[in-house]
């Protein structure tokens, strides 16, 4: 099939291969545009109302938290409408959206379910990966809410998660959309019982308005599944739930079985659930708000932004087990819970993959220094947090690494200034800022030619602007044996980037790691920066 369609901006596209087929239509490649795909509705699914809804969506997209920083779409948002002929609702056929072609992106289910996880990535998708995925999902949902949309049908199958914890929300055309201009509401007609807030139980989805609070319920269920080995928060056993067999029945009853003030006797967590204590008290408290208080009181549930910042704050405390590189846990636990579970159950939840993995690599996470504030109403902000490059002994000698640094203007007037590197091996894509941009990426090239793999190097990027100054430290290190102070173990996992989403306010933190598969302890290139804000004079 190579049908052609008109786009709403007057262009023409030709369909390529069919990528998938569902009840309401099919998704195709767009010929000559590998980054895009087209959803064409079945004639039974298409109507004018759907057209009007998609039109609003195309006109008011959310701010995707990773497009600028990671070149990755966390939200497969419709970008163009497609018509069979004239751009008239009667000829409406479908829409174009970003394609997530990478097969490494799997349904969330395959990442949080212990067996699915083992099948797809062995124990390499560690608890730290699960934690970071949870963070990234929160950030994407926050971006949706920020524009006044609701996801509606949050579930285990319509969020894709890569082996490196990048996430993408798909099936966006089912979201709840309100036309801010006319006040017209386009509801979300679908949902799954296990993620549906109790106040919507038993209702017909297309007859009720969703709210951010109903999304917050579904979001919290999904986050719980990521952090608690695939268990549903209301899964439980005991007298109180003896007559509730299905998850939906248990949600209706509303007994959150994990320890909290006010938990009734007669309901306990499942025998196979990890202890609630693997989570730090702050995260436990968020779940208690979502599922104990929040059962009857939707406004008590943490918002997507609260989840994002709560999880973000504690991310650094997720540490690697000294005995097992695939075990990551909260530092304050003292002992590795996964080692204990492995011993108790005789089965490692993060099993070693088929082959012998290499030594862990070491990475440093230095903070950029805040330099003297400077005058102006523009405010310099560096919103990449930190990222590391790891170099293994199999790497091509003299290999070059590329990455980017996002410079943003958090102030009211144009930001202008200069950038410079103090080392020859670190090159910048430009040496002055574009005053017309609020957010711009400065390309970094690390040229390893001529560098001794046994030594450590540090370079500085000096950024001097009318909105303040900043220094970003970039290190390349060769580390043998024990980690020096201030350096931390980093597990080798994959070739692609890992990210911890951006703040929904658009200027939050982004953290990235580029890790190499089968890395052997050799040389790490560490490139790091940290959010810094310079102050007004």
């Amino acid at each position, binding site marked *: 099939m190579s049908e052609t369609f008109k786009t709403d901006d007057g262009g023409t596209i030709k369909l390529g291969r069919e990528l998938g087929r569902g009840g309401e239509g099919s998704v195709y490649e767009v010929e000559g545009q590998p980054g895009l795909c087209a959803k064409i509705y079945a004639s039974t699914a298409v109507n004018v109302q759907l057209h009007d809804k998609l039109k609003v969506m195309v006109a008011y997209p959310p701010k995707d938290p990773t497009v600028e920083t990671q070149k990755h779409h966390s939200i497969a948002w419709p970008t163009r409408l497609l018509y069979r002929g004239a751009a008239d609702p009667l000829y409406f056929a479908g829409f174009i959206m970003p394609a997530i072609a990478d097969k490494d992106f799997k*349904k969330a*289910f*395959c990442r949080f*379910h*212990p*067996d*699915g996880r083992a099948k797809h990535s062995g124990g390499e998708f560690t608890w730290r990966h699960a934690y970071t995925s949870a963070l990234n999902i929160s950030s994407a949902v926050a971006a949706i809410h920020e524009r006044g949309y609701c996801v509606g049908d949050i579930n*285990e*199958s319509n969020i894709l998660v890569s082996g490196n914890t990048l996430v993408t929300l798909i099936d966006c055309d089912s979201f709840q959309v309100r036309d801010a201009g006319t006040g017209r509401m386009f509801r979300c007609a679908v949902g*799954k*019982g*296990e993620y549906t807030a109790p106040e919507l139980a038993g209702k017909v989805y297309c007859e009720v308005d969703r709210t951010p609070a109903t999304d917050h319920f579904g979001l919290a269920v999904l986050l719980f*599944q990521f952090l608690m*080995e*695939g*268990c*549903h928060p209301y*899964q*439980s*056993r005991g007298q109180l739930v*003896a007559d509730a*067999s*299905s*998850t*939906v029945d*248990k949600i209706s009853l509303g007994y959150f*079985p994990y320890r909290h003030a006010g938990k009734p006797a007669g309901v*306990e*967590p*499942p*025998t*196979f*659930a990890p202890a609630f204590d693997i989570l730090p008290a702050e995260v436990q408290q968020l779940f208690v708000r979502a599922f104990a208080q929040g059962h009857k009181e939707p406004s008590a549930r943490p918002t997507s932004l609260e989840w994002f910042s709560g999880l973000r704050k504690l991310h650094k405390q997720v540490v690697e087990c000294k005995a097992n590189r695939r075990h990551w846990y909260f530092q304050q636990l003292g002992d590795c819970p996964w080692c204990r579970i492995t011993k108790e159950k005789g089965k490692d939840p993060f099993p070693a993959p088929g082959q012998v993995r290499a030594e862990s690599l070491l990475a440093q996470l230095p903070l950029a220094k805040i330099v003297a504030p400077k005058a102006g109403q523009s405010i310099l902000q560096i919103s990449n947090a930190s990222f590391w490059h790891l170099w293994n002994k199999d790497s091509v000698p003299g290999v070059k690494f590329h990455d980017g640094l996002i410079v943003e203007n958090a102030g009211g007037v144009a930001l202008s200034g200069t950038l410079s590197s103090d080392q020859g091996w670190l090159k910048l894509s430009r040496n002055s800022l574009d005053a017309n941009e609020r957010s711009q990426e400065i390309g970094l090239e690390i040229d390893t030619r001529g560098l001794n793999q046994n030594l450590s190097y540090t370079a500085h990027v000096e950024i001097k602007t009318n909105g303040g100054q900043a220094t970003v430290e970039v290190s390349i290190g060769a580390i043998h044996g024990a980690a020096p102070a201030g350096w931390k173990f980093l597990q080798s996992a994959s070739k692609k980037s890992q990210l911890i989403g951006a703040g929904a306010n658009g200027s939050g933190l982004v953290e990235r790691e580029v890790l190499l598969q089968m890395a052997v302890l050799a040389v790490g290139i560490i490139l790091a920066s940290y959010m810094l804000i310079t102050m007004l004079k």
Partner: protein
Amino acid sequence: MSKLEDEVEVGNPQQAHCATVLLLDTSGAMAGPNIMALNQGLADFKEEVLKDEVASKRVDLAVVTFGGEVKVAHAFSSIDDFQVSPLTAEGATRMGEGIWKAMEMIEKRKQQYREIGTDYYRPWLFLISAGEPTDMRPGDAKWDTVIKLVHAGEAAGKFMFFAVAAEKANMELLAKIAPPNRPPARLMSGKWKELFGWLTRSSAANSTEGGSAKMEHPQTAGWGEVSV
């Protein structure tokens, strides 16, 4: 009277389970192409369910056969671990005992779910027969007990009972065994592949859409004849 074969660990306990018992006629009446088609159907079933990542973690499958004697050909397990040695057709049609056994297994499995805290949907009991029961007749004590349990169990929501009549099955008797709200479907001659395709889609839908009362089963078109 718990037997070891019934006490198999629950796989993927984090996921809500749908216990499914395939209760298969392996009596002499199934000999020939039918038993071969049945074996092929089981293999296809496994392969197809495995393609659905969510359903494959939820369908908890057991096979009970009644040909000569009642056997648990496969105790409950996840689809990953599902493996049945090729079935052979011989002997009398001990359907009454087979149904009894299947209902007993379902109750035990539910008990196991409750003990560990695994959620579950209404289990399925899927009977396929090409003959008529030789171990019970309308009016005898066993018949009365079995029929009462089937009808009461269905009415109370303990399980869903599906009956499929293949080949020369005694439709009249099967209709009495099956619950009144779900009369048996007759398999069109040789349409085994279509039957198992339907079973796969239904299992997948049941296990992922929550087995809610509102869920509609896919049409039996393609393999079922409208009974008269």
